């Protein structure tokens, strides 16, 4: 035990909470991917020295209170409107670093028009897109990205594609637009994936600093409460079911 005590000393720290994360306890369910992505976002902003220039746009959905957790300036957008709000901020303050953080319902259903047109104009912003295939905040209803056959509160027998259509692979659509410079799909369920997502986020913000256009980071994520599984089971289910529909990797990197 004394050996452990000698290891636990400030000079030996190899991993700790970034000061950009506030002390507020996140309201998310245990194991929620949001917390991991929030942390990466805070770490990247800290690494790039962007605390004083970053302005974030929070969405409507589970991450509506995101502004409580990262110590930068924030604006809270109406549901789906984050890319339009981010456009307004970036156009008026082009020297600031602006990003939106949105879920699948926000980005790929109610805010599809705002998303597509912000990307098409090549707004010089970063869009972080959390795709867990479900509406978490309102109680697990079907999302535009819900998998065929996947059960949700508004498709309790499973998504019937003859009735509801196929899930929308919005990142693939957005990669087609000339305004996007970087579109990638990542995950945060393993240490290796977390490291990759962090690199992708870093690249996205560096793109903005280089005025390259819109960068979109999709994170295929879990919603263990909505999926009705344990966090560890959710990670496994995501690998087996979500990844075949939403394969990880870069869709565009220019």
């Amino acid at each position, binding site marked *: 035990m004394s050996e452990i005590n000698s290891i636990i000393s400030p000079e030996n720290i190899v991993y700790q909470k970034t000061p950009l994360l506030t002390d507020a306890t996140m309201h998310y369910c245990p194991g929620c991917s949001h917390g991991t992505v929030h942390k990466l976002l805070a770490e990247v902003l800290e690494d790039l020295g962007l605390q004083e220039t970053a302005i974030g746009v929070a969405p409507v959905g589970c991450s509506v209170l995101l502004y409580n957790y990262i110590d930068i300036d924030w*604006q809270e957008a109406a549901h789906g409107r984050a890319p339009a709000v981010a456009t307004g901020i970036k156009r008026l303050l082009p020297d600031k670093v602006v990003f939106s953080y949105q879920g699948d319902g926000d980005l790929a259903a109610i805010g599809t028009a705002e998303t597509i047109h912000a990307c098409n104009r090549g707004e010089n912003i970063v869009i972080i897109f959390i795709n867990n295939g479900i509406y978490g905040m309102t109680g697990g209803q079907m999302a535009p990205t819900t998998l065929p056959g996947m059960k949700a509160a508004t498709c309790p027998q499973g998504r019937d594609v003859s009735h509801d259509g196929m899930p929308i692979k919005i990142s693939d659509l957005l990669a087609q637009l000339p305004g996007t410079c970087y579109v990638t799909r990542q995950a945060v369920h393993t240490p290796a994936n977390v490291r990759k997502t962090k690199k992708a986020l870093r690249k996205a913000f560096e793109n903005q600093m280089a005025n390259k256009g819109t960068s979109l980071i999709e994170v295929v994520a879990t919603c263990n409460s909505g999926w009705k599984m344990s966090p560890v089971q959710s990670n496994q289910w995501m690998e087996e079911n979500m990844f075949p529909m939403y394969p990880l990797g870069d869709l565009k990197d220019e």
Partner: protein
Amino acid sequence: MRELKLMKGNEAIAEAAIRCGVDGYFGYPITPQSEVMETLMDQAPWKTTGMVVLQAESEIASINMVYGGAGCGKRVMTSSSSPGISLMQEGITYLAGSELPCVVVNVVRGGPGLGTIQPAQSDYFQSVKGGGHGDYKLITLAPASVQEMADFVELAFDLAFKYRNPALILSDGVIGQMMEKVELGEYKPRWTNEYIEENYPWATMGKKNRERNIITSVQLEPSVQEAFNHKLQKKYRECEENEVRYEEYMCEDAEYLFVAYGSSARICQKSVEIARSKGIKVGLLRPITLWPFPTKQIAHYADKVKGMLSVEMSAGQMVEDVRLSVCGKVPVEHYGRFGGAIHSPGEVVEALENKLLKV
């Protein structure tokens, strides 16, 4: 140097915006107000004052771009006409709920639905009674001339920033499309970021040497939401106390009163003259602010006149506020053509005779 020009009301809005140092305009084309953005794009102020002008993909996007810019303490605006303003209601209530100043211009056309592209005044309820959800108010200015279209841009921004609340310029297709002589103000510089940070410390401009700023309208705790709503209401009462604006025309000896705003007020000026030539002593009270409404001044006339006629190009909307001001002391009637039709001065006098004099 002040400059005299002949121009459309819509063009005057755009010219005035550039000259008074507006930072950004976001809009979407719709008749009868497309000249606002067309004029801005033609003037290309981003090359001169640095003003941002962007054609958005929808009115929904426009108003949310305004939200983003307003959250940074910038003077940003949008314009549209009735169906487009309906689409903006979500954004407007979020702006009010987040206490963001901005200017929205509505060049009203006839409704409901897609309606007509001809002028109307049937968006009064939407403008002053809510429009979007929740307990909020819009500071609403009603210009009656091309000159006022120009002048009210800066006034609307001043009021919006004074009260941290969206301000609406409620015009109509007549004022937007007609050409008049207008005296344009001098070019004023846009606010610097330093000026904004010093005077509007709530603006999100990057967290530097202060706590982080959060622009939001979410208050999940009912006690916090209630306290916030009390704060809003207090602000609205102050606005009602300080910002009522109206104009009187031949009211001193009036036995009857027209209450009319915008293009209807212009028509009623002529009606006053016609009526007086027939021996009917009538005056005109023109509310310039529709909210806050000139309740006290109308109540004052309730003790002096025999009746009032609310003249509006609607099926009768402002008439409700006139009646509330009068408290039943004298009869208050409504007259107006609507759905894109415009009443003539003679029709207004005839309505006065039929509805108030012959009873």
